[in-house]
């Protein structure tokens, strides 16, 4: 197997996750990292034993002859860095959001295609064990055709990521046209859109600020609750980003013509609700026990995954990168269809138009 030479550009918080995953992937070697703040590149390299670090991306591309570049910078520079990487002959693995607008995202993908390279985006929860189980169930036909899909993402404004954001009015997320939503809503729509017909869905969004405090700085403009309705053909969807409900949940529910499936990404469960099979009040006694048995069985499957060392926090990123790297080696299709990525970013554009109208179009 060809060992791919991998580099990372952008050594912020999420770069740790990439380094965590790549260091254990067979057939890939993390050889260099880069950040325009060299101290950030240095600390990542030292902590993970990565041989080289750079403060200049062009220099890293020139000296390291990389096969793959992971672009983990804020999204405003994704397009420019992709152009540089592709010109140097690299495939690119990008953090979400892909770019500031759908138009920039399309240009980014066209740049990759025109350069004869491959790209994918870090939709890692969609490759986590529960998401893979859902894909298997959908393919098997037990759910039937999707009728309605719900995706719910909780966000903790006082958590590790939330504090970094709310404690710093200059944080790059505040400068995104869709602010916090733009940084998170990939994970809402990338669950719903793939289950819809391949047309751009109808989108109705509203958002508001639920937290009462006013700090008198740039953080005040950030809305924290988002609700979105979608419909494409015979499939509807409902997505939420919720900063105040507890626990901070991460779930989806697929209502199919044959059965319904509930996926809990945090608790790693994929369970279909029980229905009453037997008549009368007696029959109503059974479903809770059936549900308990289903969760119990899931628990044991998870123990099995743990024993096989398949239960890491970023297990989904391992799977996704494994598929992406394999596609690069063999020339097979990348793991996420470009059309699907573009439909997701199209929905995101329409949400931003509706909830932050003055920022729409990238705030340009």
């Amino acid at each position, binding site marked *: 197997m060809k060992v791919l030479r991998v580099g990372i550009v952008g050594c912020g918080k999420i770069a740790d996750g990439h380094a965590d995953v790549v260091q254990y992937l067979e057939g890939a070697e993390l050889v260099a990292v880069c950040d325009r703040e060299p101290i*950030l590149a240095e*600390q990542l390299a030292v902590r993970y034993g990565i041989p080289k670090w750079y403060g200049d991306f062009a220099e890293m591309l020139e000296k390291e002859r990389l096969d793959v570049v992971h672009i983990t910078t804020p999204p405003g520079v994704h397009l420019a860095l992709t152009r540089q990487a592709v010109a140097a002959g690299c495939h690119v693995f990008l953090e979400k959001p892909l770019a500031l607008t759908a138009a920039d995202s399309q240009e980014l993908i066209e740049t990759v295609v025109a350069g004869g390279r491959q790209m994918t985006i870090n939709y890692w929860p969609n490759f986590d064990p529960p998401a893979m189980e859902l894909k298997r169930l959908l393919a098997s036909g037990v759910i039937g055709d999707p009728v309605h899909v719900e995706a719910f993402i909780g966000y903790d404004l006082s958590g590790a990521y939330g504090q970094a954001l709310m404690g710093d009015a200059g944080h790059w997320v505040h400068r995104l046209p869709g602010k916090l939503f733009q940084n998170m809503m990939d994970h809402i729509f990338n669950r719903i859109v793939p289950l819809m017909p391949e047309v751009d869905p109808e989108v109705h969004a509203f958002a508001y600020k639920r937290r009462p405090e006013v700090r008198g700085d740039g953080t005040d403009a950030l809305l924290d609750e988002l609700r979105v309705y979608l419909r494409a053909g015979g499939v509807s969807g409902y997505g939420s980003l919720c900063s105040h409900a507890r626990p901070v949940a991460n779930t989806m529910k697929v209502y199919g013509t044959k059965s319904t499936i509930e996926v809990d990404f945090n608790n790693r469960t994929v369970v279909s609700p029980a229905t009453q099979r037997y008549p009368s009040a007696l029959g109503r006694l059974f479903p809770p026990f059936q549900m308990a048995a289903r969760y119990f069985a899931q628990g044991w499957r998870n123990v099995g995954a743990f024993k096989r060392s398949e239960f890491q926090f970023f297990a989904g990123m391992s799977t996704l990168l494994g598929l992406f790297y394999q596609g690069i080696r063999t020339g097979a299709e990348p793991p996420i269809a470009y059309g699907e990525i573009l439909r997701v970013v199209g929905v995101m554009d329409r949400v931003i138009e509706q909830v932050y109208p003055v920022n729409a179009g990238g705030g340009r």
Partner: protein
Amino acid sequence: MKILVTGAGGFLGKWIVERLLTHGQTDVRCMLRDTTKGAALEAIAARYPAAQVEMFAANLKNPAEIAAALSGCGMVIHAAAALKGSPAEMFLDSVVASRNLLDAVVALPEGTRPRVVLISSFGAMGVSELGRGAMVDEKTPMEMHPEWRDVYSYTKLRQEQMFWEYREKYGFDLVVLRPGVIYGPGGGHFSNRVGLSLFGVFAHLGGSNLLPLTYVENCAEAIVVAALAPEASGQIYNVVDDELVTSRQYLALYKKKVKSMRSVRVPYWLLMWGSKMVEGYSKRSKGQLPAIFTPYKTKAMWGGNKFSNAKLKGIGWRPVVSTREGLERAFAAMRLDKAVK
């Protein structure tokens, strides 16, 4: 002389300002990211009406804001540092921020550069390589393997290295202090050196190890004494108090004075064995469980050492508060804190 204190609103920073004023300094500039959080400093300033205590809003992450903060200062005491956050954030807040400060210092013409006083940490020293019970003092070498330690220690090591590198390259008056575990009202209840809460049980890991405690006011006093001592130029001072208590004594006092709690004593040999297991499993399972315990970290944190403050005493430092009194005050505040919660 105008003295700039970075991180002035912090746990230690506030006491540094107080001790500067106690020592008769009359011109202190307190650098804060957010001056609305300067109420405690305003209260301190009110007790010294003859002194000028200025609140100065600046963020060390923004190089453009630093030159104005330094302007007119004969000394900068750099106490700002990140205690938590992701590794990247901690490096930004501690190391990049320090680099920005140093760039602003060396941009000043030679001869006008202020004395720089860095608050480093015990974490910068390579104690893991020492035997159990070895003396830790200013001659202890710096950490050689920051990648094997916790991120906080790495940030403090990299920060201190950078100050020495800049001094070597550009030349300015530098004093470095390395506090041990700073405690006091408003501080944490337990240093990891005592133990950790694991799955609802407090694992007592420190046993009969001495804790390198320094009461926050004593630590601030040490910083001010060294900052104002001409002979401290180019020197390092470890900061620990007298009459240090052991981890076991601290825990027993805590249970008596703050709250009763269940703890399980984990002997060192078992901790080392467990650390080997955790490190091995973490690798085998491709990081399924993080290597929070490794033999290297365990040796550094729970190996047990002796500590000296002789060098600090040589320049005239004496604890302002005895360890017995310091613990009383800290535990009283923790008790109150618990009652409020």
